[in-house]
């Protein structure tokens, strides 16, 4: 799955916890320096945010009208 913001996308909207977390971490590991990935979820993943901050990743979140949170994460 690709997206206008980045080709690296985890669409976790219909995944059960903790799959979204695991899938995001796995994709982050495959990214090269400077690349970004996008996580799609129907909620804000605050525990993931904390891990991202601890590991030095930047992220930006946007809530779309259909209730999807788009979280753009930098490697």
């Amino acid at each position, binding site marked *: 799955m690709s997206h206008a913001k980045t080709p690296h996308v985890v669409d976790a909207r219909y995944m059960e*916890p903790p799959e979204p977390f695991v899938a995001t971490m796995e994709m982050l590991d495959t990214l090269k320096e400077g690349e970004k990935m996008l996580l799609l979820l129907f909620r804000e993943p605050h*525990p993931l945010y904390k891990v991202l901050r601890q590991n030095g990743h930047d992220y930006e979140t946007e809530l779309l009208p259909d209730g999807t949170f788009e979280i753009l994460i930098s490697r």
Partner: protein
Amino acid sequence: MQAMLAFENAPPLAAPLRFFLTAPLFAVLAGLLVAFEGPDIFASRWTPGALAATHLITIGFMLQVMLGALIQILPVVAGANLKRPLAVARSVNIGLSVGVLLLAAGLLSGMPTLLGSAALILALTVLLFLVVTIMALIGVPTTSPTIRGIKFALFSLAVVVGLGVVLALGLAYGWPLPLMALADLHAGWGLGGWAGVLLAAMAYVVVPMFQLTPGYPARPSWWFPVFMLLMLLLWSAGLLADWPLLPPLAQLGAALAGITFAGQTLRLQGMRRRARPDATYRYWQLGLVASIFALFLLSTVAVWPAAADIDGWALAFGVLLMAGGFLPFIAGMLYKIVPFLSWMHLQNSGQAKVPAPAMNKILSEPEMHRQMLAYAAALALLLAAIFFPTWLARPAGLAFAVANGWLWWNLARAIRRYRGHLADIEVALAAKLATP
């Protein structure tokens, strides 16, 4: 390693569990009270027995689970970490339990000392919770409808408890207050502003997450808490300014907002990707349908006030909304949260070396399903007892006590299994670490 880091956010399992394990016992007590009082309790919503049973349900069951769940879930849904969660959980759990017992005894007996001490203990307990929670939420930006809902709900909690204290003291010491109108407002802030808005805030997260439905559309989700609060403020202003047209209008607005939210949730559940309906799904369906009926009764009274005088109308509203709506929502969530938290803690204690057992090993679907059927039967009996109290009041109370005792048994059984698995995992882990 990454998963371990995420796990550090979670408060100890014991913090929410003590609430989850005490709450059903108060619902059992409410059922036993109905069985003991018999048909008289159904004479009106103002009988001492009905008031006591209502508060055993709203404070003893609903508030216990809601505060316990918030302690657990605030870090997850808002990134807000409470200071000393175990100590707060212990104090709040004990305060609510003692407070609600005193309140029920005070309402039954009318003794001023009981009512006064209940008001003091409950007010201090909720104040403690609010202070700790607000401190955790300071600096947390409102980035989602869920965070807005939680913040607005906490404001309503302060109002409902404040009104409750005034009512308890007014009742105890015979203050010249419009007790009935104030009690309605107290119920409005409690069921609409606190429980209703908190439920919606949680539903935005847990319905898509656990039932694999689409998300709630953003715009109505942002507006729901604002609209509910606005209606309750209008209702309060109408009462204060003695403008009799405002309260029914505000009630109608709040009821329609609730019906819209429930309808939206039913629509989302219809689009779920989990093929097989589970106990949570069925409990929520029951809760949504019963709430829609209850709110329909409320809207009818708003446009046609004489309906409130029809025998059983107010009682049917209360039973449908609380025993039919909120309790099933809460039981449905407990059946997801308790196995999930247990599994998460087991998964973590295995340190990625020993796998955790599947969630259905903690609590199986048939075990939950049978309890849910018993609850649905008890609810049907309670509703029928409103119209045939002589025959059905006592069986309905007993059935309600049994169904909630069964809920307690299921939850306690899940915790026992969790502890068993935890011991097994620790042994297996020690063995793995010992072998080079």
